[in-house]
Structures are given as C-alpha cells and as structure tokens.
C-alpha cells in the first residue's frame, strides 16, 4: 500500500456501442441492452464474421469544441476527444494556464495503422500481382497527404487530447493490447502518487471495426460467428459462448487528489485505490488455465489498495466470451477471492458492449466507479446456461442493487500483460 496520496475519480466520459455518453451507457448496461448488430460501417457481407459492436450515430462536431483539430482526428481519436470532453465537463474541472503543467494525460491507444482507404490507394499504385511497388509512391498522382500522415503517428491521439484541453504535464500512451486501457489508468495513478501531476485525464480509445481489424481477428478465429443472432453473440461465462465480439469506443476518467477534490466540493464517484500489473510470460494469445498471471495482478491491486478480498463486493471481469479467457479468469478469481468466491458479484459488461480492445479497460474502470456510485452491480447479460467451470458469483438475469465497498476491474491482453484496478467506495475511505 502506498499511503502517500489518495486519488479520487471525479469525472467520467464514455463513447460506447450502447451510448454516446456515460449516463446512457450506464443506463443501458443496467438494463442489459446489447449494442451488437450487423456491421454497417463497411460491407462485411463476405467475412466469416459480419457482426460488431459499433458506435452509432456519432457526430464528432456536435461534441467537440474547435473543429480545426478534428481534421487531424481519426474516428477513434474523435471518440477519445468526445469522451475526454465529457469527463472534464462532468468533473467541472479543466486545465487552466496556471494549472496546465500539473495536468497529465495517460492513454491506452489502439494499434496504429493506416486507414483501409489509404491502404487501397497505396495498393492502386502497386504492381500487377499485388506486390508493393515503392516507385509507385513517386507517381505525381500519389496523394501524399500530410494530414493523413499526421493522423497516423503513434501518439497522434495523445497529441490531439493534450492540445485540445491544454494539458502540459506528464503525458504518455501505452499499448498492451486488450490490457491497454486498464494499464493507462493504472499508470495515471502511479504518476499522481509520485506527484508528477495533480490532475490526470486517463483513458483509452480504439476502433478495429474496419476491414483490416476485422480480418485480423477473423484470421485468429477469436470472434463469435453468431451472425444471425448478434444481440446474444457476446455471452461471457455461458456454456455455449463461442468467441468475443469486436467493439469500438472510448472511456476517460478525471483523477484528482482526494483532499483537493473534497475541498472544492467535487462529487467523488470512487477512490481509484490500487493497481496491479503482471506479465503472464506463457504464450502470446493463450492464458494459463490456472489463472497464473491474472492472479498476481489481482493480488497486487488488492495489496496496493490496502484492501482485503473480504472487502470486495464487485468484480468487473475481463470476460471476453472466449472459452479460454473465461475459464482462466474464473480460476484466478477462485484463488484470489477464495472463500468469498460465491459472495462477490461478478459480471462482464462486454456482454452488452462487446470488446473495446485498447479502450475496454478504461471504459470498464468508469463502469466500476459508476457501479459504486449508484450501488448497482450491472448484469452479466445474455447468460442462460453457466459454464460449470465458470461457477462464480455471476450477476445473472438482471442487475443487482448492492452497496459496493470495493470493486476490481480486470483487463488481460494478448502478449500476456494483465492489469487489475481496485476501487473503493468514498464512505469506506478513512484518513
């Protein structure tokens, strides 16, 4: 435990497949509504998987001040700008010239790649057999678009966020696949505890719902192929689950010093109390059946928060709806929660919004804070027949009213990075 500084969550923003803001997303999670549908953003009719959890009817210009910057923003950057704007508005706090250098920004950013349209353009200058032709790029008709190039830079999203909101302090971007969002929030916590900053904008953003992203996961066979029943396709911990559903979106939190937040009379959703971060070092895509790796991350998060398993009332599971993840995660939960395993409410909100990849951990951190704030454990939707290997305290059928003293949020990524965040109810915080 690091007693040096308590960190309060005072602002939450979300752009997800089930809502363009945090309140709508939360309301739909509580109702167990699915945001999964047949893919509309591009023609996926020939793909083995034709469903996804798309952000719908999102118009960046409606929510983002200063349209000049938007020209440099990709779809996923626009999600990030919108969610961060909401989080700051929600907190009632923004960087000012006198506080800018004490504000930091820490993001879990999606994999960087040129857009499908740009790839097609480059391809049109390729050789006849489809081989890459470097001299084709020298063609006077080849569109060397500097804006497109800027948008493609690895830290472009971070750069736009810092510029848009005037953040001048410690800022960084991390990418550990599906653990990215959780690690970004955890890194923000560490940066604040070591007093590099006093305020953080922490979150994640991603969209792999494009022909290349969908291809990548189709090739690995990781996605649910329930093309005809999209609403039930993501059903973590169900005996009949058959893969995850690719989603997109962004989630951001505003973090500030506990005493400072209290002093200004801010609404504190929860304490961001602890971070655990481990490496499975097992295989790239596989998780260890015993839960080894995630176990250490959860134990570290609890120790870091000075919290015992007995004080945990809710776990927002990584729960991707793949057989391997769900079973391995439940094995880890059994070890960590031990005798409390049936008491603790567990749900995967990916059952409603799909898997937001690098954004998932950040959005789910916001979900944990809202769960504590509202006293509701959101339902693990679409669960009919529980996999006997996943017999943990799942929130079945409907959301459960529950005073949540402590919560955990899990995020595990390809490559074996495991993140666990611990949250505490404001009333449980003692000086």
């Amino acid at each position, binding site marked *: 435990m690091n007693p040096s500084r308590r960190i309060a969550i005072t602002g939450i923003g979300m752009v997800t497949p089930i809502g363009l803001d945090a309140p709508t997303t939360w309301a739909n999670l509580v109702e167990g509504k699915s945001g999964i549908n047949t893919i509309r953003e591009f*023609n996926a009719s*020939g*793909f*083995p998987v034709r469903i996804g959890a798309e952000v719908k009817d999102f118009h960046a210009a409606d929510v983002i001040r200063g349209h000049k910057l938007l020209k*440099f923003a990709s779809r996923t950057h626009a999600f990030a700008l919108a969610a961060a704007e909401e989080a700051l508005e929600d907190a009632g706090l923004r960087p000012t010239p006198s506080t800018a250098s004490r504000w930091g920004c820490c993001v879990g*950013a999606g*994999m*960087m*790649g*040129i857009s499908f349209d740009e*790839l097609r353009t480059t*391809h049109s200058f390729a050789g*006849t057999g*489809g081989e*890459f032709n*470097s*001299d084709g790029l020298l063609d006077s008709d080849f569109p*060397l678009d*500097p804006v497109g*190039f800027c948008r*493609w*830079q*690895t*830290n*472009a999203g971070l*750069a*736009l966020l*810092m*510029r848009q909101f005037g953040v*001048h*302090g410690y*800022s*960084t*971007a*991390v*990418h*550990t*696949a599906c653990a990215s969002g959780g*690690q970004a929030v955890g890194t923000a916590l*560490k940066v604040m505890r*070591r007093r*590099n900053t006093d305020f953080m904008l922490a979150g994640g953003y991603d969209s792999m719902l494009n*022909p290349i992203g969908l*291809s*990548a*996961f*189709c*090739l690995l066979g990781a996605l649910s192929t329930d093309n005809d029943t999209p609403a039930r396709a993501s059903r973590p911990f169900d005996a009949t689950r058959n893969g995850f559903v690719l989603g997109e979106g962004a989630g951001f939190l505003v973090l500030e010093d506990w005493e400072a937040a209290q002093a200004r009379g801010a609404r504190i959703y929860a304490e961001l109390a602890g971070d655990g*971060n*481990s*490496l*499975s*070092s097992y*295989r*790239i895509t596989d998780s260890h059946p015993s839960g080894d790796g995630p176990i*250490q991350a959860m134990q570290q998060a609890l120790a870091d928060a000075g919290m015992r398993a007995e004080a945990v009332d809710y776990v927002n599971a990584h729960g991707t709806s793949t057989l391997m993840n769900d079973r391995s995660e439940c094995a880890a939960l059994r070890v960590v929660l031990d005798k409390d395993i049936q008491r603790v409410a567990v749900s995967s909100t990916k059952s409603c919004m799909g898997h937001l990849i690098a954004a998932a951990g950040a959005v789910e951190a916001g979900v944990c804070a809202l769960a504590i704030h509202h006293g509701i454990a959101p339902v693990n939707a679409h669960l009919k027949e529980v996999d006997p290997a996943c017999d943990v305290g799942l929130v079945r059928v409907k959301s459960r009213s529950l005073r949540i003293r402590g919560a955990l949020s899990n995020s595990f990524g*390809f*490559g*074996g*990075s495991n993140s666990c965040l611990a949250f505490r109810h404001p009333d449980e915080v003692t000086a």
Partner: protein
Amino acid sequence: MRSSKSIAITGVGCVCGAGKTVDSIWSSVLEGKSAVAPISQWDVAQWPVGIAAEVQPRELRTLVEDRRLQKMISRTDLFGLYAAGQAIQQSGVLTQREKLEAAAQAQFNDRSGVYAGCGGGTFRSAYEFFPLLTQAAGDMEIFGRDLETTVDPMWLLRQLPNNVVCHVGIRHGFRGTNACITNQCVGGALAVAEAAAALRTGEADRAVAVGHDAPIEPETVLHYHNLGLLAQDTLRPFDHARAGTVFGEGAAAVVLVTAAEAAACGAPVLGELLGSGCVTEATGIVELRPDGDGLARAIQLALQDGKISADEVGMVVAHGNGTPASDASEACALQRVFKGTPPPITSFKWAIGHSIAASATLDLALALKAINERVVPGIATLNELDPALHPLPVSSRPQPARSDIALLCSRGFGGMNVALVLRAGNSRS
C-alpha cells in the same frame, strides 16, 4: 551509490546501423564515422531522399537465433529482443536467479519488470493484404470470402506493438510490472523513467527497459521529406547548414536494479539513473514551441527529481535531430536552463541516425560510455555552428566532461519532451 533509493544500471544492450555492441558503436562514434548510407530495403535510385542508417542485412538474422520466433515477430521486435537479451546477460541477474530455490525463483520473476518504448504500427505490415486486394478488385464481398485462404492467419500477432514485452517475458521468465509505451520518439526515454519509478516505489526489484524501432519505410521517408524534415546528404546538428534529420533504426536496452540488488549481484554498476522529467508543449502533432519551453521544463524537473543543480551537470547528450526548428529550440532550452554557460554538448544522431522510439535508449547507452570515460565525443559532421545558436559548446572534436553527471534530452511529436539525468558508475559517495 548515493542512497538505498538509487537506481543502478548493470546491463546494456545495443544494435543499430553502427554495430551490435555498445563498444563497437562507441568506437565508431569516437572515430567520427557515420553509419548513414544509401537505403538497401528498397530501390532508391529514383528517390528524392535515399539515405538512412540501417542495420546491416547480414546482421538481421543473427539477432534472434530461434527461427520459429523470427517468423512470428517483426523487424523492430528482432532489434528489441536482441538488445534486451544482451542487457540482461550483462547484468548478471540470471546468474543470481539460478542460485535461488524454486519458490524464491518464482518470487524473483514476479519482481522482475519489463518496459518497452516502441514505434507502434508500420506501413509494411499492411502490404500483406495487397494480394487479397488485387484478387478482390474492389469487391468487398470477395475480400471477406477469400481472406482466410490468402492472408497468413498469424498476421495480427506479428504486428502487436507489445511483442517485445511479451517475448522478453517468455524468454527470460520476467513476470512483473510492465508497460509498452507508444509515445513516438520519447517512448524509449519513458520506458527507462517508468522502470526506474517502479523500482523506487518498490513494485519491482529489477527491470529491463528497451527502446526499439524500425521506422525506415518508403511512405515514412516520403512523408518526412514532404514535410521538409529530412536532410539529403548528412545530419548536421546545430550546424549553420543543417537541413533535416536522417532515419536510423535499432534498439537499446538497459537493466535497472535497486541498490540492494546491485550489491547482491556484484555486477559492475555502469551508471546510476538520478532523475527524469516529462512534459508536453501541447502544440499538436508535429509542431513545437520555438523557445524550447517544454524541454527546459523537462530538464528542470529531471534535475529536481535527481536533486542535482544545473551547474553540477558535466555534459549534455542533446536530442540534436538536425531539423532547423528542433535544434534551434533545443539550443534555447539549454541556454535557459544553464543560464548561458552550458556544459559541453554533443548528440549521436549524426552517427546512427534518428531511430525514433529507439533513439533515447541508444543515446543513453552511449551517454553511459561517455560519462564513464569523461569524454564528450565530437559531432563529426559539424562544420560551422549556426551563428544564431552561438555560444553553444558543441564541437566537431571531443571535449572533456565537466563532471560525472550527464543530461540526456529526448523530444518527439505531440510536443513531448523528456529529460534523464545519470551519473557515471565508478563514482562512490
């Protein structure tokens, strides 16, 4: 070592166009040799810019012996895994682990961190979809239908930005706290800063920090050229005639350990990491402030963090990327921090190119050599210091360091600025 909170560097690994050991790269820098040469990865005969400091093709396959692994990772991952492995070997931490019993070994592994700064995505990875695009001829239904018979099923795994973190963990058994930082040029410097912070706060007892990148690609070269950022002949930092940067590639890694661990290992301490600072100018994606405000603030934070005053700094390894705007603003920042009397300044990109996310860790590896030998190498391509930057203590010839403390500057897109402060390894106080 200064205190129990000191962070010692006990291992270094490097690969870049100038060699694949820190000693060979250091020698070529001291000899004034530049690794910049015509690009070999594609035919540049017709290209407006065709130079870079590439890792020699014959070296490429020697970096990672495991043939199966070679096929599962990308070019930049080869560099990163090689450098990390070399640094871990040199540090002696594996020998230390072997002496432990099984339970203690497991705890050792859980207390061993892995931090990487990497370049993120590449253009070349997407070329693997070209045959499918040709076959589909614009029909998305055919694209989707023929996908699985045309593209390698493992395609995504080769592109994972966190491959080095993952495979360093698997190869060396490190299982502790970790991060893969995708913050363009400052990624490597932040990997070092975050690893040191993890050691200071007790999250880990040891960590490897690696910066790796392979940015030399046709699109990138053309776009940088289009933005006026590339030199056509050579990289001349701070020179009157400087015309831009030149790409490099490679990786460098350091093993950081706590003072207690350093004593237990008995490995020579190559240096101490005293402090770091990280800020942004919030100027957008490629712009920077002409007054160097961000860099000056980052340096001041790093000095504070290391409890060092500016006049204790004995030498500066500047970012020195050779672009007119970056060098001029960097000079402003150094003049401001050192109140007009900076210690001797050098930079290394003229010799090994600008390897983006790998640049800061390569600079760190060379800075350790420099500060231990108290030699500030000359910038061999420097002909005439830009009069607008006078009096900046840079030289084409070696200068003596003023003390055993070095400052390192790393700057990147997003208005990012990171500074690291380190001390030579043979100082004991």
